């Protein structure tokens, strides 16, 4: 892979033909990062864009299941790993550790340095080709995976920014405020915040009930509570109400 990396650097790297890179982040787990990444990718593809998803959640990779790609083989080419395409037109390209595991139930029990090394490879050694947008799905937190993906992306490519996902609960927004600090400290631009699970529409009576009683998301945006909030206030806040499945 060393020789290929040298080849990549000469040609501008595997991200040279990727127009935009957007991270999907949340301090909190289970708020819908992978779900939103998937929906966003499908929406962008539907509008005619070529999209990639890089799944750097090594312990809990959800993207393969969400896109129902099963367990395809990952092949190599001169430039590195060939991403998994969801269709013959190659309009949606994926890379996840989920594709590299022999057994889907196998636990990836790795400490930070090993995770950092694989994420470095995911960033530089996947032959994405031409993409309009590369979405990066991340695990919850502000640790090895986040630092690794950001450091490696910055070496190769300008990162457009991050979309932060929260749910209305204070327990969620509390973690997301920490993620905002992470973005500020690492110089990562926040493109906007999505409040997921804003309500549940009962399939029996069609009444929308909040899953949690109050929303604490505005506290994330209040100017005097967060040093970056004056920019956040101008970002769109999307409320996503979950309809019955």
């Amino acid at each position: 892979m060393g020789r290929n990396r040298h080849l990549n650097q000469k040609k501008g790297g595997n991200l040279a033909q990727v127009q935009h890179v957007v991270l999907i982040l949340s301090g909190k787990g289970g708020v819908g990062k992978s779900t939103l990444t998937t929906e966003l990718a499908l929406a962008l593809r539907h509008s005619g864009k070529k999209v990639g998803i890089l799944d750097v959640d090594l312990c809990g990779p959800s993207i393969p299941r969400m896109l129902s790609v099963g367990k395809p083989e990952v092949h190599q080419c001169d430039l590195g790993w060939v991403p998994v395409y969801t269709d013959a037109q190659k309009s949606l390209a994926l890379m996840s550790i989920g594709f590299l595991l022999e057994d889907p139930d196998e636990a990836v029990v790795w400490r930070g340095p090993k995770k950092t090394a694989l994420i470095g490879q995911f960033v530089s050694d996947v032959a994405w080709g031409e993409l309009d947008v590369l979405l990066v799905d991340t695990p919850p937190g502000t640790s090895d995976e986040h630092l690794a993906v950001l450091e490696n992306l910055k070496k190769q490519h300008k990162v457009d920014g991050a979309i932060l996902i929260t749910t209305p609960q204070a327990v969620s927004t509390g973690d997301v405020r920490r993620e905002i600090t992470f973005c500020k400290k690492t110089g990562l631009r926040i493109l906007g915040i999505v409040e997921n699970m804003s309500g549940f529409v009962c399939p029996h009576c069609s009444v929308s009930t909040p899953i949690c009683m109050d929303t604490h998301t505005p506290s994330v945006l209040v100017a005097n509570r967060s040093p970056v909030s004056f920019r956040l206030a101008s970002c769109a806040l999307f409320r996503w109400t979950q309809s019955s499945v």
Partner: protein
Amino acid sequence: MADIPSDAPQHCPGTASEQAGKTSACQGCPNQNLCSSGATKAPDPAIEEIAEKMLTVKHKILVLSGKGGVGKSTFSAHLAHALASDATKEVALLDVDICGPSIPRIMGLEGEQVHQSGSGWSPVYVEDNLAVMSIGFLLSSPDDAVIWRGPKKNGMIKQFLRDVDWGELDYLIVDTPPGTSDEHLSIVQYLSSARIDGAVIITTPQEVSLQDVRKEIRFCQKVQLPIIGVVENMSGFVCPKCKNTSQIFPPTTGGAERMCEEMNLTLLGRVPLDPRIGKSCDEGKSFLTEVPDSPAAAAYHSIVQSIQAYCLSHVPREESAG
């Protein structure tokens, strides 16, 4: 010994790692020769120190899930409240989610600080018989982010186990972050000479959760951590208007019940999604006392009883007298 020396380079694998002294990041590090010689891979003395400390803790329960957002912290907090409702029991809750510590908020302890005494760090008390420790108490602002790599998180967990003055406890509950990484390996490693009763695994009904939870179960099997059982959380939503139950997260692959059958595990119970649970957590109150008539409260009580029964029936013949 698993720490990063202060003069180590940025991607130091840790002195106790198999790769100590051997990675590309080790080039030029002043400790490289020492690490690659294997001298740093001697057993961490903290393991025995922690075992000594844990002699006064009768039962240790880990709350795990491969998946985020399934209700580990909510469950851990309410398990602690339920066990501590017996005033004769001493209970403690340790939050090792270093990046996303939710326990201070859920226990109504936001803004509390930890104090040091001659016998170590004092945990924060919710009740006379319910103590809590979390990195949340060491942060000065709710916006403070803990942007740490694995080795530094491991060091914190070691301190929590070794340096907190827990005193005599009937139950120590450990709330964990999602995943199977540094925090999980460290908690198992540092408690390796102290007996862990077992793990309670939390999931929600949908396959996207179960696929991560199966990995967590494999992790437990790999590190020989007994599994007390599985809790299926958010198992149905009762509409407050029409009282019909809907599946927010449909168990398209059989939910936790089928997973438990396939993996020969105990399903401890199913907890329905009651919006008032989230509200209680946000307000730092116990849902069990705020909404005692909820079907979710009844489910929690039944699950807690099963966990207590497990702990009492699995005491080894000889407890180490130290």
